């Protein structure tokens, strides 16, 4: 037990802080792999139906607002940027910068979710939500079925992404609270680090969703 370094953050199953940090980071990366597979099921469904109903998917995709989509992508990239700066602030022990960047990240995430909510609301008003009332202008009557498939995938994919964003916002608030309570030091900021990993991963999912959902056939319609 002599080698046991007593620091408040070291949990009893670990021998050293380095071991603890590496373990937590590895755990987070493995968790992200499970997230890849989770979204993977949706990407598979998307690939198969897009291949099968290429024309209708193109038409349906072009009814989304590409400008809003691109702008929202930029918002999310900004939030990733502030997140990485927050991690950096934690690394060098600047509590004030950490708090500022976490707040910025939360705000940017909020903007993204707000825009998403606005888009969803628009879809409801335009009857682009799969169901008996569904009708997509510009798609021939016989193509309404596959057009619904597109919007089913759109809502499921963006919905699950938004859910991950919400969880991310919760994580950020938690980090903010702990940062405010001076829990993080340059020798212990693992939660900020792995929170950042999660946030960036959610960003990456959107990086794929944006072209796959918004930009299928812009050159044609």
């Amino acid at each position, binding site marked *: 037990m002599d080698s046991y370094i007593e620091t408040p953050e070291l949990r009893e199953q670990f021998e050293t802080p380095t071991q603890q940090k590496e373990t937590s980071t590895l755990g987070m990366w*493995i968790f992200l792999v*499970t997230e890849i597979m989770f979204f993977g099921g949706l990407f598979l469904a998307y690939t198969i139906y897009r291949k099968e109903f290429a024309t209708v998917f193109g038409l349906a995709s072009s009814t989304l607002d590409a400008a809003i989509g691109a702008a929202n992508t930029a918002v999310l990239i900004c939030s990733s940027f502030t997140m990485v700066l927050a991690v950096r602030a934690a690394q060098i022990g600047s509590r004030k910068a950490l708090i500022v960047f976490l707040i910025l990240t939360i705000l940017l995430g909020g903007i993204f979710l707000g825009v998403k909510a606005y888009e969803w609301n628009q879809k409801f008003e335009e009857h682009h939500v*799969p169901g008996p009332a569904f009708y997509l202008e510009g798609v021939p009557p016989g193509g309404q079925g596959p057009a619904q498939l597109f919007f089913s995938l759109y809502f499921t994919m963006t919905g699950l992404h938004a859910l991950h964003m919400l969880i991310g916002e919760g994580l950020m608030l938690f980090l903010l609270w702990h940062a405010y309570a001076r829990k993080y030091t340059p020798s212990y900021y693992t939660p900020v680090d792995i929170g950042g990993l999660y946030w960036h991963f959610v960003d990456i999912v959107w990086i794929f969703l944006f072209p796959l959902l918004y930009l299928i056939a812009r050159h044609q319609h």
Partner: protein
Amino acid sequence: MITEAVQERENYLNTSHGIKSWLLTKDHKRIALLYLHTITFFFFLGGIFATLIRLELLTPKGSLVSADTYSKLFTLHGVIMVFFFLIPSIPATLGNFFLPMMIGAKDLAFPRINLLSWYLLVIGGCFAMYAMLAGGVDTGWTFYVPYSSNYSNTYVIATGLGIFIAGFSSILTGLNFIVTVHRMRAPGMTWFRLPLFVWSNYATALIQVLGTPVIAITLVLLICERTLHIGVFDPARGGDPVLFQHLFWFYSHPAVYIMVLPGLGVISELVSVFAKKPVFGYKVVAFSSVAIAVLGFLVWGHHMFVSGQSVYAGLVFSFLSYFVAIPSAIKVFNWTATLHKGSISYATPMLYAFGFIGLFTVGGLTGLFVACLGVDVHVHDTYFVIAHFHYIMVGGTIMAYLGGLHYWWPKMSGRMYPEAWAKLSALVIYLGFNLTFFPQFILGYLGMPRRYWTYPDEFQVLHVMSTAGASVLAVGYLMPLVYFMWSLRYGRIAGPNPWGATGLEWQTPSPPPAHNFEETPVVTTEAYDYAALAAMEEAKVG
């Protein structure tokens, strides 16, 4: 006197008391026991369903329960046994208890997540139980669309949610194991000194982490389809029901290896200890576990040879399925070779190991039939398939689980089980199992389809044999329940190493102290080095 001495020494069981000390414990050993209680409950629950199914099938015309009830019985039997017993069975109990000890760690890497996984299993189980009590679910454990999405009027959503939540339990256990094996090994515990049980649990964990998320998203889609009618699998809107089967089997085929791989690890331990020899071809056996885990992901389409999947995809999946046969065969050959010139004890765990090898061999060899395209077209969805996977899951996994439970019982409880009763029950289980399931191979080849409430008269003799076997099997399974409980109070005190085994878990008192080891062990020998163990014992005596 001795009893008091054992009870006085501090161990993980008496270090703290009260229900709270159990429900909030972060000790992997206590969590393992929580799991043990939970899955024992689910095992007997699933067993009751199985008994009712077999009783119903005693006569060709349904007479015991209605057709509707029968459909719910086999669905719940499958759901409970697969998701709430077999998948957590060995990893969450024996793995949870012994994996950290075997690598010389104080605990798993994430003890709180470990506790969380138990709660998730219980919550998932509650959803499944709610579905059961509210009216049941009748889709079959496979939940094929569009029946499950648009036609069934039963509690599909509650059951789906239950499995979804239990899935997270499985993912988190797997994640915990992987990280633990990578980061928490004791000094000197190199990869090739790991006991084979650790290797097989590591391979299992890989599958849990990579496969389970896909069943999660599949169930999300199914639930969305039922509640919001999104139509992803709805043919009327261009959706493809076969896509559901791809997603389902991408997880559910590897899930078979989640169930059986830990069992293969247990058998490697048992064969070595009770032959007092290192496992023949240690590295080959270790790698074969990982090979099974990886190859297991490339073969799911062999569940879909007649589903409307393209014949060319069928070709690829059949071809790759045969690759899984090789690492499985290697294991059986290596265990057999381990026995050669060994010092073979007939203790109960070894009887289970013998039983396992025999039944797993039959299960594996009949797997060649169902992997064979031309034959599978005929036997697909018949009792042949039922018999085949029960040989793997019951004859394999449950045999290994019981063998492992007997083997490690002295370590977990500090006391021995009654040997004579245990031998008797092992024999009863073995005979009962074969009588139950062997006739089903013949039934299946004759053409008896799965999930039939009634059947043509000519199949009755075989069904009666199967039901008779099931009653023997039920008695066999009840016996350990009784004598294990009995042994907790009246069993002989075990001592730290009753079997003369080499693993680190045997070098600490039984039951182990809260932090497993008095001091972090340093490993200097290979796994299964019985000579070194003998030398060490001698040194202690001298």
